[in-house]
């Protein structure tokens, strides 16, 4: 029974990873860039949610939406300033810029408000214990899972049913050909960053509600783990990111359940390295031969 309870926790945690991983995977699918700053957008989203709840006295859902909107704008700004000029530069230059942006957001935040952690207000979401077949499930976990599922369905709808989504898929398949077909590549990339960052912002608010403590450097570890999740599922593949996120959450919870909670972060990286070595294209990916 203990194991099943840990599984439920793992799925809640995994759905947060999945939301962040979606942003990674979408951006990587289109511009082939590991957006290191994505974890920091998640942190910013968390803080915006916190300030809207405590200072503006908003409820959970308005805070969630504000945070998503602000993060979407932030994502587009980052893309325009830091990544767009490097569209044709080497991959390493883009990666180093991403690291720079990540550090800038983290330490800019510390500069503005100090490094001290902040505690999320506890009763933003109804917290009740539900007993079911001998397992205790907190209603917050269910809420988190529900919100994540709704957001993922919305994302699937956007990607598969709307014009923007079609453009995104076209650009990720072949940017040159998409341009020839009259798709504005720049606008599509901006839309991708906006959607990905909005999901990270939502994940930030959910994280804060669930784990209470937030701080300026908190984006780093969940950010990298979300990247692990994206690689696990096959980077660039949207359902892969969801499955990878959930899987990683469950793996971590099981590691904690067996009493190795101090090794939890390490296990995520071991999973990453094993996946990269044995199946570099991820669980859902196909292998491509390299063209010379």
């Amino acid at each position: 029974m203990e194991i099943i309870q840990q599984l439920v926790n793992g799925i809640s945690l995994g759905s947060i990873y999945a939301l962040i991983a979606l942003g990674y995977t979408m951006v990587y699918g289109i511009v082939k860039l590991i957006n290191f700053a994505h974890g920091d957008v998640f942190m910013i989203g968390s803080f915006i949610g916190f300030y809207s709840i405590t200072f503006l006295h908003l409820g959970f859902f308005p805070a969630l939406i504000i945070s998503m909107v602000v993060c979407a704008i932030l994502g587009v700004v980052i893309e325009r300033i830091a990544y767009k000029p490097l569209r044709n530069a080497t991959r390493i230059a883009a990666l180093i810029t991403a690291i720079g942006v990540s550090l800038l957001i983290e330490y800019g935040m510390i500069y503005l408000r100090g490094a001290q952690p902040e505690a999320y207000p506890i009763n933003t979401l109804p917290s009740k214990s539900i007993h079911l077949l001998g397992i205790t499930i907190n209603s917050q976990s269910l809420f988190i899972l529900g919100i994540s599922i709704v957001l993922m369905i919305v994302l699937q709808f956007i990607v598969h049913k709307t014009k923007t989504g079609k453009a995104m898929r076209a650009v990720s398949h072949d940017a040159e050909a998409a341009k020839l077909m009259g798709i504005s590549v720049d606008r599509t990339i901006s839309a991708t960053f906006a959607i990905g960052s909005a999901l990270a912002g939502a994940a930030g608010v959910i994280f804060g509600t669930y784990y209470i403590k937030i701080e300026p450097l908190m984006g780093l570890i969940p950010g990298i783990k979300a990247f692990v999740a994206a690689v696990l599922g096959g980077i660039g593949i949207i359902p892969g990111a969801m499955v990878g996120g959930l899987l990683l959450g469950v793996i971590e919870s099981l590691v904690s359940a067996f009493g190795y909670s101090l090794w939890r972060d390490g296990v995520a990286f071991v999973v990453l390295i094993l996946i990269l070595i044995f199946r570099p294209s991820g669980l859902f990916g196909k292998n491509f031969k390299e063209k010379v």
Partner: protein
Amino acid sequence: MSILKQSKGFWLSVIISLVFFGVVQWLISSEVLNSYYTNTLFTLSINIILAISLHLIIGITGQFSIGHAGFLAVGAYASAIMTMKLEMPFPVALIVGGIVATIAGLIIGIPSLRLKGDYLAIATLGFGEIVRIIFLNIDYVGGASGMQVMNLTTWPWVYACLLISIIVIVNFTNSTHGRACISIRENEIASDAMGINTTYYKVIAFAIGSFFAGVAGGLYAHNFYIIQPTNFGFLKSFDILIFVVLGGLGSLSGAVIAAIILTIVSTFLQDYAETRMIIYSLVLIIMMLFRPQGLLGTREITSFFKKSKDAGGGTQNGNKQTTA
């Protein structure tokens, strides 16, 4: 004639390095340089060793590894265990630190060097973090509270390690092996097609780089009174990466100059840690936007004085950096 000229240059550099060593040693022993400046000088030298060891991996071989703090940590802990637990002399500890870091470099290098670009970066980042978590969970080395280390680092040892690492890496770069590594940086598939054993050279470069990072770790550990796993996180790796990137991907003297400038700047900004990081990050972004090849590109500082002589580190004509 050219042999005579070369040997003249050799003896000149020997004399210059000995004089520099003597002057600094005299300044330290006569206490013109107080302990604060001495400490800064040691940190500076350790940072130079770290910068050039990473330069060999990123700048020469083009393998984007961002977990260098992991090797530093392995070297630091291995040498600290040698002196503090097994009571070995300091030079033995330094060498053991280097060797253990080399072994770590081989363990991570052989499987993960099949990866390219971003994936290698993420794998090495993960490796660095795994190392940190392992040390965090071993009680033998003090866990999170860290390990007490004697202050054994002295100027002769620091200077010797610095000189040896520069000499080894410069000679490696200018040897056949170094040329092979540069060709891997320029185009891995093409150099593979030309019959270069790319995996072999990448692992060699990784092993040498991690050896010197391990030695630097030994010096680093014995320069402070305590080492903690938190000293070897992402930020330390990024610090070292910034030296290499800022100086120029592929330029040894660039990495050295960047290490010197940034160490001095961060010493002055010690009390304003977040300002320092903001400046660092802005420098990184602006550098990449306007001069992605770094300050010197693949050129060496010597090439500004004499145009004809090959200064190593890669192609002289055209500052093109085509790292994967």
